[in-house]
Structures are given as structure tokens and as C-alpha cells.
């Protein structure tokens, strides 16, 4: 069964947009422009992706999939790097991290026969993994910076007691990982109870039996969980070093780039 939404119904989505717009107008939130712009931008982006996907799905998988994955990873890297622009080698680190995560996840999916190497399966599922990993890296970077900022005194104390940067940063890294993983653990705990996850919803709407939808959802949820953990650990373990110089001295955030 293939359902479609009639175009006139889709246009009526404008009614939904009017709700936040009206609220923004009444309370003068200064968000009117943002609301209009993000709606237009989102709509155009989605239609564009729809067109591209239609085209890519027609290409042989060995051509279409690598192209799409590269684009997704590059866009995700450009986006996540904003969270750590004070840090050296941020672009290449995120890029390597995302490629690594994608390779690991994809080889497990394919190796264990969970999905087949077709654009219809690889691309949306990889998109979710890459997107979530991107967010996880961004969050971990922000958290790492604020941990180093807030715990400057403790870090200085640790160094002055003879700790190596790795040892001194241990606590901050631990907190960073904790903060990055807890939302995912919570999400996994309440999965399906609070909201039906996006992928499952999509499959059910597309006419797939709920029990099959759930299997896919399980694969993706657990894959996201592990790739998010990997991303957070990877970015924290690579990046904490730049907060110190070779002389095991703690640097200020504004001096890090000069040093790296």
C-alpha cells in the first residue's frame, strides 16, 4: 500500500505554522522572521532531498550510496565544527570520527544481515546515525569546554600535584561522557512509551506491519545509542589534549588555537 498526502492538504500546513507565528507576534518574541524563514528553508530542503534521493535511488548502489554518505558526513562535519571552532584540527577530527562511526555501524548492519546494501535502507539509516553522532559530538565539545572552564582550579591543583594532563582531565572527561550519554539512556528507556520513534512511525505510515517496523526501530535505536557513545568518547579523548601544552600547563580557551 502506498499512501500519499494530497497537495492541497500539504498547503494547509500553513495553519500549523500560523500558531507559533501568532504566539511570536502577540508576545513579541522577535522570532517572526525565524519562523517564516525556517519553514520555507525546511520545506525547500526536504523537497530538494526528495528529488536527489529519487535520482540516487536509481543509480547503482555502489555509486549512489558513497556519494550520499559523503555529502551527509561533510555537511554534518561543517555543522558540528562550529561547537569547537576554538580548538585546532576540529574539522578533520570530526570528519575522521564520523567516517569511523559510519564504517563501524554500516559493516555491522551488513555483516549481520540486518539490512541490505540498497540506498533505500542504507541512506535513511545512516542519516540517522550520522545526524545523531553529529549532535553528540557537538554536545560533547560544548560540555568539555565548560567543564574545563568551570574546573580550572581543580585542574590546576591536579597538575600541581604532579598529574599528567590525561590524569588531570580524567574527571572532566568523565562528566562530559556522562552528560552526553544520559539523554540517550533515558530515551532508550522510554522508547515507544512517550512517543513512537520516527523511523517506526514512518514505516507504519508506509504500510509496514508494526512488528517489522519495531525490528527496524530496534536496529536503528541501538545503533544510534552505540554510535553516539563512540562519537562522544572519540571527540573527548582527542580534544582534551589541546587544553594543555607540552609543558603540562593548562591553557586558556583563547590560547588553545595558537598553541595547536
Amino acid at each position: 500500500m502506498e499512501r500519499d498526502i494530497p497537495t492541497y492538504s500539504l498547503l494547509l500546513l500553513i495553519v500549523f505554522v500560523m500558531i507559533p507565528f501568532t504566539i511570536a507576534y502577540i508576545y513579541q518574541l522577535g522570532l517572526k522572521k525565524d519562523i517564516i524563514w525556517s519553514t520555507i528553508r525546511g520545506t525547500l530542503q526536504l523537497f530538494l532531498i526528495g528529488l536527489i534521493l529519487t535520482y540516487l535511488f536509481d543509480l547503482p548502489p555502489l555509486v549512489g550510496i558513497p556519494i550520499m554518505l559523503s555529502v551527509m558526513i561533510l555537511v554534518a562535519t561543517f555543522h558540528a565544527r562550529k561547537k569547537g571552532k576554538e580548538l585546532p584540527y576540529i574539522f578533520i577530527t570530526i570528519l575522521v570520527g564520523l567516517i569511523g562511526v559510519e564504517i563501524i555501524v554500516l559493516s555491522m548492519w551488513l555483516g549481520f544481515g540486518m539490512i541490505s546494501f540498497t540506498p533505500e535502507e542504507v541512506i535513511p539509516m545512516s542519516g540517522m546515525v550520522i545526524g545523531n553522532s553529529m549532535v553528540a559530538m557537538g554536545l560533547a565539545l560544548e560540555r568539555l569546554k565548560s567543564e574545563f572552564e568551570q574546573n580550572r582550579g581543580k585542574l590546576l591543583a591536579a597538575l600541581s600535584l604532579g598529574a599528567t594532563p590525561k590524569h588531570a582531565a580524567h574527571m572532566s572527561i568523565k562528566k562530559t561522557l556522562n552528560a552526553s550519554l544520559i539523554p540517550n539512556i533515558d530515551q532508550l528507556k522510554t522508547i515507544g512509551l512517550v512517543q513512537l520513534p520516527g523511523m517506526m512511525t514512518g514505516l507504519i505510515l508506509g504500510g509496514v506491519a508494526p512488528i517489522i517496523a519495531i525490528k527496524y526501530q530496534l536496529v536503528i535505536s541501538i545503533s544510534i545509542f552505540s554510535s553516539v557513545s563512540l562519537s562522544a568518547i572519540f571527540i573527548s579523548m582527542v580534544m582534551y589534549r589541546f587544553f594543555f601544552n607540552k609543558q603540562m600547563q593548562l591553557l586558556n580557551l583563547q590560547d588553545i588555537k595558537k598553541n595547536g
Partner: protein
Amino acid sequence: MNEVIFQFNQVNRLVLKDITFTLREEDRLIIFGSSGAGKSTLLHLFNRMDDPDYGEVLFHNKRIEQYDIPQLRRSVGLVLQQPHLFPDTVLDNLKFGPSMFDDWEEGRAERLMNYVNLPIDYINKSVDELSGGEKQRVSLARTLANKPDVLLLDEPTSALDDRNIEAIEEDLIKLIEHNRLTVVMITHSMDQAKRIGTKGLYIEEGQVIEYGDLNQLLENPNTDQLKQFLHKS
């Protein structure tokens, strides 16, 4: 005369200009001057928490860069203005340094708690339960746990009230004498300086204005600058 332990030769760093002096074993040097004069920057050069832009620092007649950094910081201990204790228990804090060097034995905790005049059963207390004065004592004990030869003190009592200051000072003097420590201390209180120090180094705007025997400096200042400074404080 005691052996030279530290020698600063024309050291420059940030505001510091051509800092030159020597520190001998068991000296207790007080660094004083207006805020922004470069006191903390100078203190951090002793254990390489910072490095000079120009000039050299000699530790036991060898360039300080030649020492392994963790080992240097172990023997030149620093106590910060605020305690900055690590999470969990007092014992976790005391063991932090020694455990990195595989140098911890039963009984050391008791000795350390004794030095800083805290009850031994405090070692299993969470650091969150301690008062400000107790925290600073633990911070001092944590540095002493590394068995340093030189103790750097960055206004260790500035965050405490008078009663606590006096008590900690007494314990500090006792343990400095008992362990024959060489001390470099920054303080704003000239009374405290007199009670603890033997030598003085007065700096303003990054330059050494006067350096020598502390009593001499405080009683017969040579420069108008120091006279004015002492008059104000």
C-alpha cells in the same frame, strides 16, 4: 650557609621583568607587592605551572626544564588560594598525588591529618561536609602528601576568617619547621609575613624593588616605594 636551591636569572614573563634572586634551602621567602605586580606569575615559575619567556630558572643548579615535570611538581608543591578539592572523600584527596607515584603507605594519612590538625576520622568524610577552614587544611595536607622539599603558598589563608587564619598559621609554622621545608609564600598580610617568613621579595609592576632579609626589609626599607607600601598596609 645553606645550599642554593633556586636561582632566577633575569627572568621575564608577562609583566615580570628581569627577575633575579636566589633561594637557599630552608629559606622562607615572602613575595609581596600590590595586586597585579606579578606575584602569582612568579610563583608559578617555581614548579613550571608557567615558563619564562626569557631568562633561566635553576633548580639545584640545573636548568628547571631538565627535570621531569610531574617529579618536579611533586617535590615543589603548590597550595592554591582556594582549596579546589577533588570529589569524594578527604582520603581520596590525600592519596591523589602519592598514588600517581606509587608511594602511599598505611599511616601516612594519620600523619598528614596530624600535621594539619584535623581529626583522623575525618579521612572518610566527603569533602562537601567540610568547613572552609577544614577544606584549606585538607588542601595543604594533600600537597604535603607528596613529601615536597619546597612548598609554594599562594595566599593560602586569604579566603579564611581571622580565627582560622591564626590556627592554620600556627600549624603551618610547626610543619614547616618539622619537615625543614623551603617555603615561597605570597601574602597580603605583613603580620603574617613576619610570623612565617625569613626573607622578603618586594615586587611592583613586575620588577624586584627590594630583596633580602625580611626583618631588614620591613624595618629599614631602602626605597620610598617600599616605605609607602608598608605605610599603606
